[in-house]
């Protein structure tokens, strides 16, 4: 997994995840991408409220496997909700902002 930004276009799809927050969640999620050799173009993640859940944004490239990936993300025990977003600007994932 890399988080390179330069290959991503303005209109890249972004997967928004609401998940339980514990140390293994990220591995569960990224594992589904890694086994398919499907690169994540950007990751943003942060805890919500009391820290029991997190919100995660994954910027990806258009791919015919996305629907299947989303269904498998939804199947994960730690996943509360998955939403596709097309209104997240690519700059949100720019590491130069940090």
């Amino acid at each position: 997994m890399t988080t390179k930004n330069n290959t991503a276009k303005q209109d890249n799809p972004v997967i928004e995840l609401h998940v339980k927050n514990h140390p293994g969640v990220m591995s569960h999620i990224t594992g589904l991408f890694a086994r398919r050799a499907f690169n994540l173009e950007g990751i943003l993640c942060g805890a919500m409220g009391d820290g029991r859940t997190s919100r995660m944004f994954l910027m990806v490239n258009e791919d015919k496997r996305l629907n299947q990936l989303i269904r498998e993300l939804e199947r994960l025990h730690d996943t509360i909700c998955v939403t596709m977003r097309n209104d997240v600007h690519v700059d949100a994932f720019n590491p130069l902002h940090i």
Partner: protein
Amino acid sequence: MKRTGAQIITTLLERQGVTSIAGIPGGATLPLYDALIESKINHILTRHEQGAGFIAQGQARITGKAGVCLATSGPGATNLLTAIADARLDSIPMVAITGQVTLPMIGTDAFQEVDTYGLTLPITKHNFLVRSTEELLEVIPEAFSIAESGRPGPVCVDIPKDVQTAEIEFDAWPEPGQKIPPMQPEPSDIEALAAMLNKAERPILYVGGGITAAHCCSELQQLARQNNIPVACTLMGLGTIPADDPLFLGMLGMHGSRSTNYALQEADLLLAIGVRFDDRATGKLEEFCPDAAIAHVDIDRSEIGKLRATNLSVAADAGLVVRQLLPLTNRANRAEWLQRIAELKAMDPKMHRHEDTHPLGIIERVSEIMGEGSVITTDVGQHQMWVAQHYPFRKPRTLLTSGGLGTMGFGLPTAIGAAMASPGKRVVCFSGDGSILMNIQELATLADLNLPVTVIIMNNHHLGLVRQQQELFYGNRINASRFETVPDFAALARTFGVRGTNLGSETDPKSALADALSGSGPCIVDMPIDHVRNVYPMVPPGAANYQTLEGAAHDY
């Protein structure tokens, strides 16, 4: 009350209804093994953790409830992996408990430390690394609930040693983890499915392990009979409809009957229930059921559309769907379609009674001796396919076989678990001389338990299915599939204190086989077979299912 983590684990397992656990102790599970002394749970000491995993699977495949296995950290956990992955691919409920080094030692490359959480992550339905003793009260019941709910699967619970030893104070025990009842399907989906079925002229039911998991075999049979729908089964679906039912088409796919695969080519509706369009079943997917509308029912939404686009899909429990579908279907007689199926079946090679030394002959003899509800386990290879094609399974949970992962070494330990879960009944394991050596050490466990398990080793001194594929698809260049050394399995059995017989050297092989399948305790049967025999029909890997290879007359 005050309890240690280890005591909490054993009590929660008891409250969960667990009566036996298979495993091997080690440094990181010593506290748990100490607590087991005070527990009512019976521990089965295996000789390899993979054996423990498959014993748990054997129990689970018989009962439908999660089997439990136990391994220590490091190599104990890595040895379990194959059995966990196998359970995942065949949707078998299982809870694997592994010891882990103490919390402060995690990540230091401590002795027998391995990242069990990371290793089991892609092969479990869910996994836990328990980080405090308090968490056990939540995690253990949840592990069972996850394993048994929805599409069943394995759950791994990794428990550091200090979590097991720490003592905590708490008020009450949590409720045991329960199977969560499946959601009701949408009535409009059921109506649409019924409409599709009612107007179909050439429908086929394509069913698999999901029917067994949903306990809806009799409803499935009713649906098939009242609407005259032929039924093709996956390997995991064998037993969901009796083999002698006129509507039964046998197994589809790579080693399915030619008539079955041809019938699927002609179908106008494929009603797929509790199946996942596995490549061994569908062959080249683009050419599978080319003229059929596809209706797919599966409890796992992520299976729907994964490989084949559907015309109608219902993500719901197979039992609920089939039960609600029954009153809406119109009892068509479909005489023309059944006539066509009969014509196709008539073109299959004629089956005659086989001689005793033929692989199909021994399957016939065993099925004649064993009762119709007897449990059969297999290993993986030619013998597995011969059993799947030829053994007359009539009930669900009577064929225990490694379908998805195709794990050689599955048969013996799974038979032990199955025999434990079906007291008083003899379990037969069909194996090969390649497969049996992959978990041969469990003969010692079998001897310990003195269970009525008969292992029949079809011995051709080869990895037969590999040899077959080298013969057929690699210009007969046989490489690394012939064994130089094959042990005397009957003598080997006796060194473990188990009865052993070689049907090739018995003066009366018939009565030797009958003896092996009766009496008390285990028995190992070495059955020499001709290594040139192939499994037919066979669809070459990657080919469409109608591109069937047929063998010579002697192969049937």
